[in-house]
């Protein structure tokens, strides 16, 4: 059994991460604390940077030298890292960034939230880029997705984000760790490792000629299209006969699942779609629903992922929203009440049609 924050750290080490740079912020401090203790034991490097901006630029340097590198923070700290993430993406450098999201905007609070969805799934910093974003819902999934994040970052040469929150970071659950990553890290002939005996490698994001920058951006976009085609992931729970489909990720999906059990026991045909990748968003399962008559999105925000849900259903189904924000976690009871309310409206509609 391990705390989620520590589990991410151990999973990163399993994945071959030997460079961690961070700056403290609640609720993710157990992760850098764990890395500070563990990385020296495996010949790695831990630096507590002077700021989040410094930490992400240390990641930039380590990634440019070909190392598997990571940083972690929480919402306000991740905002500070955005410039660096944009540069990493522009330079096609792989890295993993963990955001244990807390309530915002501003300094906000330290309790769980999902209000960084827009920032995470739309690139986050400036310029035409995206990052693969995972949303974990258990300690085991934090382990599995951390390992996959390093793999995907190297495969696409792009930053990968792992989103969770203080509940997942602080909670302890059983977790199983593999002995090694499924694939060895790939060769990185592009890395700046000393140019003796070969042409020098240059890592740089300044491209002043518009036509060259345009070509670069379209090439990056082609890579993001590949990510959309290959990497989208989700979990379905009782969608086959569902008349009401709830969409929720991370901690909120756990709450919804508890409510779902209660709703099913009352005979309501409700299912859950849990996005595992937040970008790319799993639109496919929402486009092939057969019996669904309504969709309910539940989030710990004032409504962010709900926009992707609406884009996915393209007006074919009504999309409702239930959100708590500022660090308030919805209870299964509240979600069940909302499910019943919508189920009641659907039943009335059906009655009216007869």
């Amino acid at each position: 059994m391990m705390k989620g924050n520590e589990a991410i750290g151990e999973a990163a080490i399993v994945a071959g991460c030997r460079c961690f740079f961070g700056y403290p912020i609640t609720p993710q401090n157990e992760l850098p604390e764990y890395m500070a203790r563990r990385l020296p034991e495996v010949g790695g490097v831990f630096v507590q940077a002077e700021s989040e901006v410094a930490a992400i630029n240390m990641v930039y340097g380590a990634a440019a030298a070909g190392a598997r590198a990571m940083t972690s923070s929480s919402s306000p700290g991740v905002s500070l890292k955005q410039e660096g993430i944009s540069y990493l993406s522009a330079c096609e450098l792989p890295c993993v960034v963990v955001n244990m999201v807390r309530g915002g905007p501003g300094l906000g609070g330290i309790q769980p939230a999902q209000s960084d969805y827009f920032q995470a799934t739309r690139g986050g910093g400036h310029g035409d880029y995206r990052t693969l974003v995972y949303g974990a819902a258990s300690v085991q999934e934090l382990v599995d997705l951390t390992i996959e994040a390093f793999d995907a970052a190297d495969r696409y040469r792009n930053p990968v984000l792992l989103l969770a929150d203080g509940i997942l970071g602080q909670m302890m659950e059983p977790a199983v760790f593999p002995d090694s990553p499924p694939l060895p890290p790939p060769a990185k002939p592009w890395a700046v490792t000393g140019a003796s005996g070969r042409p020098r490698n240059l890592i740089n994001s300044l491209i002043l000629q518009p036509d060259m920058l345009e070509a670069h951006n379209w090439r990056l976009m082609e890579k993001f299209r590949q990510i959309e085609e290959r990497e989208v992931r989700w979990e379905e729970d009782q969608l086959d006969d569902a008349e009401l489909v709830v969409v929720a990720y991370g901690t909120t999906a756990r709450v919804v699942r508890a409510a779902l059990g209660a709703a099913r026991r009352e005979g309501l045909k409700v299912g859950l779609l849990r996005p595992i990748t937040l970008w790319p968003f799993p639109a496919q399962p929402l486009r092939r629903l057969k019996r669904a008559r309504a969709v309910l999105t539940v989030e710990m925000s004032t409504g962010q992922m709900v926009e992707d849900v609406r884009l996915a259903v393209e007006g074919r189904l009504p999309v409702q929203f239930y959100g708590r924000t500022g660090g308030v976690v919805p209870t299964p009871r509240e979600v069940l009440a909302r499910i019943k309310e919508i189920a009641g409206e659907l039943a009335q509609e059906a009655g009216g049609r007869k």
Partner: protein
Amino acid sequence: MTREFLLAGFGGQGVMSLGMVLTYAGMLEGRQVSWMPSYGPEQRGGTANCSVIISTEPIGCPVVTEPDVLVAMNPPSWERFCGAVRPGGLAVVNSSMVKVSRAREDIRLTQIPATSLAEGLGNLRMANMVVLGALVGLTGVVGMDSVKKALDKVFPGREHLVAANRAALDKGLAWVTGGAAAGAAG
């Protein structure tokens, strides 16, 4: 079958480790388990609490707001959480420190002088294990064997404390099952 615990006390009373041992014992018995500490801007000597869920089903939200079982180790914890216990639930109160003034008719209440019993064993800090022993007897949610095995997992490298912890567990169990040891110590 899902049992939700809320374990509360002041910092240093060992409610976090009480929760961890209980959770680990549940895992050793093949159940789904979660442990979740309260976190926030805390201060030394302030109150602390953790949520533990032991279930045969996958666990939804790990934060317990309406516990089946409440442990209150100090007065502020009792004041804060006694109203939250699910009707039909159980409250285990450290009667060495908490005077129960406002009783609820719809829950079971067990008052155990955990701090005094631990003091009798020669270590105040074992009050948490006395209460865990009592929980084993009162709820049957996990077996004493699993709890004792869990001790080694939660406190690796602290073998010198294992005997004392085991004695405290036995003391708590005997107290609630009316064993001779409890009578002598009471």
